[in-house]
């Protein structure tokens, strides 16, 4: 039982919240906010307590200390999102839907946990679907707004398509190896044309979740249409979980065709970084802007995955951790501003520093971390990624990565410039954000700063990744 404690705890609090939500009268629905956050906080803390690891259900479910750490990272991110979304949930139009928000988010998180811990393709697929389908309802949260409805519809259609292709790939894997268990597929997987096809289809399905070019097109409309907290969930947690499981499967199940998938990643990594950047330059809506910049970030993650080694593994997890804090920081500020003023354009940020210096500084720190400016955490994340790739001798890829970093620096700094240097006739007026938003942002800032300066985090992940690879 303890082996599966992350998932079980989540299931328990989901059931509790479901019952409470049902029996709460409509006018008292908002009282569920604080208990939900507290319960989830307890779950997060409990997750950090070391416990047994191993396999269940004949190998369908497996967990290692490294996988536990991944789940803890996801929990931390979701906790920050929960705290950040309080202000938005309290809005009048969300009255009555507050409980659903927590239930749906938690169930997708359960799906992700099962997905990361899966030991065969069936479990993996179940987790993946559980983590995806409810998200469409979240994307369509403001269902009377055309954009939000559009986002939900687009997400469900495209994810259905990608699931279809993914399943097709899995069925071919089963057809050629006779098994869906990771352990057995591992030994029987070669690079026959059918198996290459199967792998590419599987990869395309995962690429959809991570938003890798050319499987990324859904992302702009969905990100823009969804409420900002959902967007940050999609771009951070959902993407992070997919990266984790992709890494595990690539490094274990497909290790025999490593030379093949390294080439696939090589090509898609360059495409993703470059195209994500080229699109991000043009965006004026802060959500779309962050969406495309997160595509470029996914390209960097792929670059780290190629450096297939203990170092590569550590750096990818470290990078995702840093990315969670930085992106949530940026989304957090954008969310607060959008909630208070309804403004979502970068032009509206002109002169923000003069009216809201603390928010501007937080945004700057988060953007610096995303761009990889020392000494904040993002620098070390990128630095280690490039080191891992360079160790494999992929100098060309590293050079392209560095060039893309420079391009990304340009557009991240555009936002900073807008806040600090530009002046505006009608800047966003000063406002005091509520306690929840402050705590959420404070957690992000602390994460960005502490992870950057303190090496124990990195050392810890490094020590765990001995196990898997």
């Amino acid at each position, binding site marked *: 039982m303890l082996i599966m404690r992350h998932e079980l705890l989540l299931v328990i609090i989901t059931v509790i919240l479901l019952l409470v939500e049902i029996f709460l009268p409509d006018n008292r629905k908002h009282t569920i906010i604080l208990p939900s956050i507290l319960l989830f906080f307890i779950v997060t803390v409990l997750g950090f307590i070391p416990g047994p690891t191993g396999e269940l259900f004949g190998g369908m479910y497996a967990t290692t200390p490294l996988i536990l750490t991944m789940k803890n990272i996801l929990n931390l991110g979701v906790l920050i999102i929960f705290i950040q979304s309080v202000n938005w949930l309290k809005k009048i139009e969300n009255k009555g839907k507050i409980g659903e928000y927590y239930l749906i988010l938690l169930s997708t998180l359960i799906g992700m946990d099962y997905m990361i811990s899966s030991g065969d393709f069936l479990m993996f697929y179940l987790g993946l679907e559980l983590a995806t389908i409810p998200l469409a309802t979240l994307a369509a949260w403001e269902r009377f707004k055309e954009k939000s409805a559009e986002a939900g519809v687009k997400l469900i*259609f495209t994810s259905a398509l*990608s699931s279809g292709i993914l399943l097709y790939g899995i069925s071919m894997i089963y057809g050629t190896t006779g098994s869906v268990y990771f352990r057995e597929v591992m030994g029987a997987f070669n690079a026959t*044309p059918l198996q290459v096809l199967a792998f*590419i289809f599987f990869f*395309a399905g995962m690429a959809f979740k991570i938003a890798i070019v*050319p499987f990324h097109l859904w992302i702009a409309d969905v990100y823009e249409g969804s409420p900002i907290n959902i967007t940050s969930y999609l771009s951070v947690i959902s993407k992070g979980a997919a990266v984790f499981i992709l890494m595990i499967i690539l490094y274990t199940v497909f290790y025999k065709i490593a030379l093949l998938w390294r080439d696939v990643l090589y090509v898609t990594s360059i495409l993703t970084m470059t195209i994500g950047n080229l699109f991000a330059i043009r965006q004026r809506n802060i959500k779309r802007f962050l969406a495309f910049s997160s595509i470029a970030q996914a390209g960097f993650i792929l670059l780290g995955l190629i450096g297939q080694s203990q170092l590569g593994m550590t750096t990818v997890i470290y990078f995702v951790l840093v990315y969670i804090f930085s992106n949530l920081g940026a989304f957090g500020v954008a969310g607060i501003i959008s909630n208070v003023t309804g403004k979502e354009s970068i032009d509206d940020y002109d002169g923000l520093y003069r009216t809201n210096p603390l928010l501007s500084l937080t945004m700057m720190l988060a953007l610096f971390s995303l761009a990889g400016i020392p000494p904040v955490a993002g620098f070390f994340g990128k630095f280690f990624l490039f080191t891992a790739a360079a160790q494999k001798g992929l100098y060309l890829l590293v050079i392209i990565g560095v060039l893309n970093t420079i391009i990304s620096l340009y557009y991240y700094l555009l936002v900073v410039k807008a806040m600090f240097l530009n002046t505006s006739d009608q800047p966003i007026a000063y406002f005091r954000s509520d306690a929840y938003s402050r705590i959420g942002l404070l957690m992000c800032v602390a994460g960005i700063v502490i992870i950057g300066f303190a*090496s*124990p985090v*990195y050392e810890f992940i490094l020590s765990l990744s001995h196990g898997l690879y």
Partner: protein
Amino acid sequence: MINFSYTVFIVLIPLIFFVLLGFFGNKFKPLVSGIIGTSGLFISFLLSCYTAYQYFFVVPKIAGAFPKLIAYNTVWLRFTDTLHIDLGVLLDPISVMMLIVITTVSFMVHLYSIGYMKGEKGYERFFSFLSLFTFSMLGLVIATNIFQMYIFWELVGVSSYLLIGFYYEKDSAVAASKKAFIVTRFADLGFLIGILILSITTKTFDFISLTDPKGPALQQGSSILFLGLSTMTWSMIFVFMGGAGKSAMFPLHIWLPDAMEGPTPVSALIHAATMVVAGVYLVARMFPIFVISAPAALTVVAYVGAFTSLFAAVIACTQYDIKRVLAYSTMSQIGYMMLALGVSGYGGHEGLGYMASMFHLFTHAFFKALLFLCAGAIIHAVHTNYMTEMGGLRKHLPITHLTFLIACFAIAGIPPFAGFFSKDEILAAAFENNKLLWAVEYAVAGITAFYMFRLYYRIFWGKEQHYSHPPHEAPLVMTIPLMLLAVGAILAGLVPFQNLVTSDSLPFENHIELGIAIPSILIALLGIGIATIFYRKETNLPQKITRTLGSFYTAAYHKFYFDELYLFITKKILFDRVSTPVAWFDRHIVDGMMNGVSYVTNSVSGRIKGFQSGQLQQYAWVFVSGAIALALAFIYLWTL
């Protein structure tokens, strides 16, 4: 084994107080922030004393020698399993001694500043910077590896920059802080190159394995030659360049006199007792490498030190700004320490110079900090830096007068004051190894006595000036540090350094040699005597001498035109001949290329916008065709 991990807090406490005062300083009353900063330093000071007691008297010696202890260590940045940068605490005789010196002087300066900086704008900023500086300096001396030292080395440079430019509304202070930063930064470039060469040759950053005389690092790696010198020699010369920059050795000395623009307590802390001896400490830290693998570099150290000490002493005789006189005197004394290291050998009595250098560093910290703090009290009383506007102050400032006199005796090398003992050891070491350098230093000892007593008489004796308001003695919070440091300036010479801090950590027999000591006392007395004749009463003797020396005096007064020379090199040659063409190239060719790139990026970005049409069908089409294209490409490539 005694657990020394608490020593981390000696370093961390100033950091905590820096953050505290830096962020929340303006929330307190000024006086409160001063007291907070001072009490923080007091804790560090007590911990350092306890560490020194434990280290020197409790820890068991290994084969008679003081052990090198890693009190704390953590891997800060790991690149690979072999290449990683650590942060830690290394305890050995010199680092423990430096802990004492730094925390003592820093505590005194903190205490003194409570009174001195009263009413100044940015009081809490001053104390937070002082804490930052102390943190950096402590981190530098306890560094376990050369990279950690480099990190803190730069931090020291930054905090020194901040403190020199404390009065940032004053143009001269801003210029001085920039000058100090740029000159030392330029020297640090050499240091960095030295570190890189050294670590490539020896494959390690770690001090313990680097400086183990029998270790692999020193036994190999000297065979590769470049321009007739081994790589180790080159690396040590470059490392010394960094040390020469921080320690204001000729020809990188030009920043130190200008740095006197900072508040006087800062001059006492940074530009007398701690930061400027970082270069000496660096050479001492790497001493086994110098002696065993790079003796040529050690010779460079000796001659640079000797020349600087003479050069600076001559200039000190001609200056009128009392802080500048002290600044040149500092350069001169540090020259002594460098020289002593330069003529030293390794082990036993051979290492007399090493011991003497550390000894002088120790005693010098007390009396030079005392001199600066006295100068601060004097400036506080009469509101001028120029000795021409002073005179007859001995009745008005009795405590300052007495403590200043003690410090003058100490620096002049009159027994039983502290400077005598350490200077005597240096002269003895020089005498045994290099007679020429000994002669230079012997002369400098006389000049030192002369200019210090010139300073003393012109401030405290002579005709009383018309002060705008009658000068008065400084408050107790300022005079207590003076008195405590005066006690140090008297007693520090009695510390048996030959038993505690030696080149190989083994104690050795050493006595004061009368053959060296008596002549050096005599020449000091001669210097004092001449100064007494010249300056005790108003006479026209100095003018006569000045006139006979003629152009030599003018040159010395203008510091031998080094500022002008550097300005000529930077402005006329570097800026006009090199920078202008480079700037043109940058503006037209490089920027043009960059603009081209950004134009292409932008237009491509505009072209491909069409892909993002918002049409779901098109998304699906791209998705599927992308997957199929990838599959076909890789099946083709892979099964060919």
